């Protein structure tokens, strides 16, 4: 059963399995475990990025097409919904039209990009897409009367997805971290801590939106997992390894590559639309920026290229770091409280410095990504265990004789 849901591509590492289960629980029960708007936003962004990164991994990790124009599709999705709602009002019909239009545009652009990749290869292609994405960004910014320019657009979601809609009232949540905090710092207040940890969850339309997001992320992820483990996925791997030879084996690599680019673009567009609905605000900075592109790339590489599970791990680690690193630094610099150059280094306003360092370090220490690394460790342990067993067996046999 599990085998067939996960298309036979199991996590293959105990640590990874545990982490994935924990993430699944955290995302599924998130609004009831972590109080606060920031936590809520973080959960939503994780789901969005799981889709985006998984789709990107299909291109990058499984087919070795390095494109920096991915945010373009994300932006198209987001702006599609924003403009749809802007023009046709806050209804589901408007959302549908917006998404449909965005998907069509993305498909067309992806097709062009796929064709471009035939003529312009490898690193050239990567850099060209970077420039194209930049041009797209600049066009969107310049058409400010339609797109709002740098100021972006507000997305007035339908009432059912907004904060005013209250399908359920007063659901109780349990503040997991709050409770754990008490447990570790003041175990003597455990009972009080336990009681205090309960809180009231405002179950609104936004919560509904979150669950829609969560659901889509799950379904798309499983779909991609099946895809990469299908014969089609194997051909992609072949193209990644040696496109020339794949052609000589009779595979029309052009079609495969274009199909992958388009599929990936469409999924990303869809994720962009979900993002707009969840975030209720779109602007170039958030959807089209080069920085965002690099972040997606980092999530992909950090999680582990060519392992879809990496998309989940990468998105979680990254989004959490992005949202909470500054607070950690703040706490740290208060605790340490040194002045001068060193002091200014750990000032929260220089959190980007540490972020950059983590960025570099993660590429070094997880050259095959977190998932890849975990799998390597797991395999090493298996081998060691096998060796140990064999030794134990032989020594036992010796003792017998």
């Amino acid at each position, binding site marked *: 059963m599990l085998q067939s849901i996960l298309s036979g591509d199991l996590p293959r590492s105990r640590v990874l399995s545990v982490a994935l289960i924990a993430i699944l629980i955290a995302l599924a029960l998130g609004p009831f475990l972590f109080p606060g*708007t*920031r936590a809520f936003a973080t959960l939503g962004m994780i789901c969005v990025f799981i889709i985006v990164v998984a789709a990107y991994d299909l291109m990058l990790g499984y087919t070795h097409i390095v494109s920096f124009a991915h945010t373009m599709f994300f932006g198209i999705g987001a702006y599609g919904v924003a403009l749809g709602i802007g023009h046709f009002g806050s209804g589901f019909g408007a959302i549908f039209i917006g998404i449909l239009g965005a998907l069509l545009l993305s498909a067309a652009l992806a097709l062009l990009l796929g064709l471009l990749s035939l003529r312009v290869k490898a690193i050239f292609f990567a850099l060209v897409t970077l420039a194209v994405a930049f041009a797209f960004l600049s066009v969107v910014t310049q058409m400010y009367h339609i797109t709002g320019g740098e100021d*972006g657009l507000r997305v007035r979601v339908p009432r059912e997805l907004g904060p005013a809609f209250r399908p359920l009232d007063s659901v109780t949540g349990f503040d997991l971290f709050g409770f754990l905090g008490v447990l570790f710092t003041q175990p003597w207040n455990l009972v009080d801590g336990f009681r205090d940890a309960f809180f009231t969850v405002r179950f609104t339309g936004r919560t509904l939106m979150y669950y829609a997001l969560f659901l889509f992320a799950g379904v798309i992820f499983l779909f991609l997992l099946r895809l990469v483990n299908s014969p089609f996925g194997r051909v992609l791997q072949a193209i990644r390894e040696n496109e020339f030879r794949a052609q000589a084996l009779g595979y029309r690599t052009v079609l495969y590559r274009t199909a992958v680019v388009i599929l990936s673009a469409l999924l990303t567009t869809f994720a962009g639309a979900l993002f707009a609905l969840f*975030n209720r605000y779109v*602007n170039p900075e958030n959807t089209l920026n080069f920085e965002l592109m690099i972040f997606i790339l980092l999530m992909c590489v950090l999680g582990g290229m060519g392992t879809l599970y990496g998309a989940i791990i990468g998105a979680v680690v990254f989004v959490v770091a992005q949202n909470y690193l500054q607070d950690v630094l703040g706490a740290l610099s208060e605790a340490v409280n040194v002045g001068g150059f060193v002091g200014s280094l750990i000032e929260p306003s220089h959190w980007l410095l540490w972020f950059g360092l983590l960025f570099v370090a993660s590429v070094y220490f997880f050259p095959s990504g977190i998932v890849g690394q975990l799998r390597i460790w797991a395999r090493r342990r298996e081998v060691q265990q096998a060796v140990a067993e064999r030794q134990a067996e032989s020594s036992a046999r010796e003792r017998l004789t």
Partner: protein
Amino acid sequence: DSIRVAHVSQFSGPLAAYGEQLNVGLRLGFEYATDGTMQIQGRDLELLRKDTQNDPARARALAEEAYAEDDAHIVVGTVASGVALAMLPIAEEYERIMMPEGVADAITGAEWNRYIFRVGRNSSQDAISNAVAIGQPGVCVSTIAQDYAFGRDGVAAYRQAMEAEGGEIVHEEYLPTDATDFTAAAQRLFNSLEGREGCEEGKYIFSIWAGAANPLGRIQDLQPERYGIQLTSGGNILPALVNYADFPGMQGATFYYYELPDNEVNDWFVEQHFEQHNEAPDFFTAQGFAQAMAITAAIEKSGGSTDVEDLIDALRGLDFETPKGRMHIRAEDHQALQAMYHFENVVEERSDWFSDRTVTAGVPHLRGVIDLEDMDIPILNQ
């Protein structure tokens, strides 16, 4: 119960310096307003600080966090107009006061809601005061601005005010926001003014430009004086004023430069700033100070109540003192108004502007104060 003011602005990334200045100003302002007690009407004042990283999505989340979790009564927003605009709906959702800092007209215009109060100037104010400063019959102006809402709005307001003064706008030039090479634009500006009839009182090029790469210097390099063209522009932050050294005699209008206003608050402010930071206070520091003065005045007016409706009542029509002079918040669109300063640029060497260096800079010298009555600032939120 304390009064909680959350300053949600960018403290890292490209515009971090402005956020920092605002924050310094805000603290100084409260210090002055409360005589150092940090209490208003017997209630403690609590100042929170959150870094948007110049990311609108994050800014929205932080504003929500400030209202929902920190239970802040007032959120003071950011100087980046886009980010500020993105935050506005949050105030409406949570029904709490927000005081954004961006200059976009839309903040107290199209995107306004009743919880929004702006203590800073808006871009039309800037533009109009500049038009008033030099405008008279026989003046011809070509404008150069960035091609987006801020630039276009500004020029439109400028044109209206200029025409009201009897001057004439000859040509409008718009460039991408990130342009760095102005040769082509200068060429066209010159073409538009060169040999034009009926400009006895002067030919000007007026620039409205946000960001570092100001076109004035590049235009000046191409020697506009050959065609009898002068430059004119608004005020700027101190580092930018350093480059104004290239434009001796240039005139314009600004909302603040620390030596222009003549009032008690400013005296205290400048003195304290030099004492604490060993350098001159800038644009946004004064802005933050004014912010604090407005908040204090409002809460005093409401008798210490921080209930949102009480605050709205108090803020509407509020008059308060700031380093920039006396200010007034219009009831209609919650936009604060102030007198502006008509200046003329004089090249001087200044060692007191920055703590670490001496610079040769274009220093604004007062030519006159443009009173509120002289400016017709449109109400845009209807």
